[in-house]
């Protein structure tokens, strides 16, 4: 009954069914949570803020704090100046964050609220206490996707705060992308082994993965501090992971403070992680420590042990563009066959890049940017795949078509532990292989005829 479509595709010009994306503000809210002591502020109706908080809570299983301008009909007519001014005053007097990071919504964008002017006015009127930071970004929901919103917030944070004093530090900036806190921790661990001092922005570890200590803290210990963000302008280089979520911010920093930038993909899978480690090596002029070589060797060992189970397996991948690009590369490394590759986020770069990755792989894939899961389902009905890789929204297709789903990306709404295990680095790659091979073998064990059911694999 959940089988919502037939195999035939029809032209759909005006209609989105079962999206593979959501709107900009939630990405901006998530990015802002990666700034230490920051209160994300949603300048729009209160539903936006509530939906984003609920959605993030379902994925991270953590309290998610954000405030709203609570627009009324009056604000829709006369603009949101009064609401935002009151909001700023209330936020600082009650919650006392270090930073308020404002993002707009479709409503405030269409009304045309000039946020910098409102912030300045509030400051002039003494409604923003001395020493407190207020930043903003524009996140019209009718442009791009949640990934765009994330990128906009990171870029604006740099625009507002990064400074160049002229004294280059020994620190490397890493703009890690739209990742889970566990991924950020893993990147920090790798940088630690490499012996490189770094600043990560945003850094949601220690914010959306805190332990149970009996307290409820509005502003947990984690997040990139304002001081660190300022000094990003003095770092010796920036590594930005992900064309869609991170590159704009690195470009901004390069233009603003002349910090050389390396534009990479997410360090997911073997090649992705190799490229990351190699870039760090080059920028920091270091030799790769033995410990990293060993981690890598263990991953390759695992790939060799299990390659026969993954060879030629066809895969449908759906999700956020940077994740999908990195995953496609990993699947090629694993000798698997990406068959359908979809992102909901618009951007021609996606299709070009996937085509490049798949060029010599012998994989004849259907690739689509600005697509949706409804269409993906139709393709799968025409020709099925062995695995689906994507967020929880793919579970309907997985069930109807009896194809194992490897949960990957954002959001995971129906399982509790994904957020705690990194997918980045050699460690993350091992976990992904574990999930894929187990899914393939579990299905075989469950469904094969008795004579083919084997104890030893």
């Amino acid at each position, binding site marked *: *009954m*959940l089988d*919502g479509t037939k195999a035939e595709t029809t032209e759909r010009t*005006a*209609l*989105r*069914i079962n*999206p593979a994306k*959501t*709107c900009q503000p939630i990405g901006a809210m998530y990015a802002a949570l990666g700034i230490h002591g920051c209160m994300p502020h949603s300048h*729009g*109706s*209160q*539903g*936006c*803020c*509530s*939906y*984003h908080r*609920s959605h993030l*809570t*379902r994925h991270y*299983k953590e*309290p*998610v*704090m954000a*405030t*709203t*301008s*609570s*627009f*009324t*009909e009056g604000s*829709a007519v006369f603009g949101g100046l009064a*609401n935002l001014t009151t*909001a700023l005053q*209330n*936020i600082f007097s*009650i*919650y006392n964050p270090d930073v308020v990071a404002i993002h707009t919504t*479709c*409503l405030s964008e*269409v*009304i045309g609220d000039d946020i910098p002017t409102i912030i300045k006015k509030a400051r002039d009127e003494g409604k923003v206490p001395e020493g407190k930071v207020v930043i903003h970004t524009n996140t*019209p*929901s*009718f*442009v791009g*996707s949640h990934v765009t919103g994330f990128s906009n917030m990171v870029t604006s944070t740099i625009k507002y705060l990064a400074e160049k004093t002229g004294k280059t530090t020994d620190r490397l900036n890493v703009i890690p992308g739209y990742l889970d806190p566990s991924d950020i921790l893993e990147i920090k661990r790798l940088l630690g082994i490499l012996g490189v001092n770094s600043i990560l922005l945003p850094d949601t570890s220690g914010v959306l993965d805190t332990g*149970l*200590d*009996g*307290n*409820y*803290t*509005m502003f947990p210990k984690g997040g990139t501090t304002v001081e660190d963000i300022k000094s990003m302008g003095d770092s010796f280089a920036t590594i930005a992971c992900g064309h869609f979520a991170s590159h704009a911010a690195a470009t901004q920093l390069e233009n603003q403070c002349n910090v050389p930038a390396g534009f990479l993909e997410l360090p997911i899978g073997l090649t992705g992680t190799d490229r990351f480690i190699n870039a760090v090596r080059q920028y920091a002029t270091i030799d790769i420590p033995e410990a990293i070589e060993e981690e890598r060797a263990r991953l390759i060992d695992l790939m060799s042990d299990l390659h026969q189970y993954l060879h030629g397996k066809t895969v449908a991948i759906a999700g956020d563009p940077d994740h999908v690009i990195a995953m496609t590369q990993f699947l090629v490394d694993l000798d698997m066959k990406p068959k359908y590759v979809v992102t*909901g986020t618009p951007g021609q770069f996606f299709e070009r890049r996937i085509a490049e990755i798949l060029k010599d792989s012998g994989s004849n894939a259907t690739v689509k940017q600005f697509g949706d899961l*409804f269409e993906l389902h139709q393709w799968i009905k025409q020709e099925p795949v062995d695995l689906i890789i994507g967020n929880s*929204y793919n579970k*309907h297709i997985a069930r109807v078509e009896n194809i194992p789903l490897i949960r990957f990306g954002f959001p995971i709404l129906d399982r509790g532990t994904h957020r705690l295990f990194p997918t980045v680095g050699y460690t993350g790659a091992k976990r992904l292989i574990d999930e894929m091979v187990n899914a393939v073998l579990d299905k075989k064990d469950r469904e094969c005829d008795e004579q083919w059911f084997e104890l030893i694999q």
Partner: protein
Amino acid sequence: MKDIEIIPEREGQVQRKGDASTPMACNKKSTAGSVSQRACVFCGSRVVLYPISDALHVVHGPIGCAAYTWDIRGSLSSGQQLHRNSFSTDLREMDVIYGGEKKLLLALRQLIARYKPKAAFIYSTCIVGVIGDDVEAVCRTMTAEAGIPVIPVHSEGFKGTKKDGYRAACEAVASLLGTGSTEDVKPHSVNILGDFNLAGETWIIKKYYERMGIQVVTCITGDAKIEDIRRAHGAKLNLVQCSGSMTHLAKMMEEKYGIPFKRVSYFGIEDMSAALYDTAKFFSDDPTIMQRAQDLVREEVGNIYPQLQAYREELQGKKAAIYVGGSFKAFSLVRALRLIGMQTAVVGSQTGGPDDYKQLAEICDEGTIIVDDSNPLELAKFVLEKDVDLFIGGVKERPIAYKLGVAFCDHNHERKEPLAGYVGMLNFAKEVYSSVMSPVWNFVPRRQPGRAHTGMPSAQEKSVSLEEKIP
């Protein structure tokens, strides 16, 4: 943590039973800048209409509003699952500039051709209200073209509170009433209003009424089918559970069709039984209905009572905090908790009215904190102050409760077990018991006095276990 203040503008929205002199200040828009747990007009409309499973639900706006409400409610359907898809016009920049009417019309044409739904609900989001799309005109055109009701839902997010969204949903439903044949509607018949068939609750309640010899024409909107809603005006009585969302519809039906309504609740033994008895009293022309109601209550209560007693013994004296959407549900929860030996120390809602809070105060114990439209800091403060053992709330409250080391029960959209009816009361007790009595809470700081944190004692401190032989 101890020094959390109440936002000054919110002082009128927090009361303690015993020293409240003025009525609760509620029905207010949330203060700008507060971390409100509330949603918007669109959310109100969407949650109410969502369970109508053979209708098309199209969200007219940018993608977010459709994405966040895609398959989020555990409202079960006995037939089609069309409502579990996400349909949106996904408005883009050009649409915002040139208007989205054409896109909407085209989208509807394609969708109706594909799914042949019985009706379609078109939700307006914030932006539609600002760019000025004439959604009504599009709906009229499509109604004429497709021959099914294509109903606009005026749910622009900023046009009020979630309650206004309920109202818009009621008006959308009302437009369907009176359009179907009432021929097979029996003299002893009711509509269930304001149950959403979460985890199959409507089915449980419906069976009770049927056992009493009463026909349930439709439920609005749990497992509702368009054909049934069309003939709902034939019923003799409306039973309103979620009063916040459905009183408006009940009043409209009373006015237009002369159908009286009763406010009921299906949570807890007392309220469930009262709902059945009140209905039986209404149909006093047939005394066998009351007889059957009494038999039913005796049998059902008899079935669950021994098990409830067992839970009660374990849970006796434990304290709870309640924060739910509608206030009427809060009444039932206070009573249901009492039945299993628990006391309510904090109670609040997102959408209660002044009378609701007055009534709430009447049934609560002295000193109970009563709160309207609260925020996480306030809730955390009250939970710690009252040292509660259980928090009952929704998705955003769960992780806060856990961080504080407090058990949790989801009494909102995401509940997985039916909590309505007699079997629901038993499920509720089970769920409360399984969380409150979980050994995990023995490891949390507030149950390990002497330890400042979750960590081990300092290096100097002698640890007992080293001197004892570890088996």
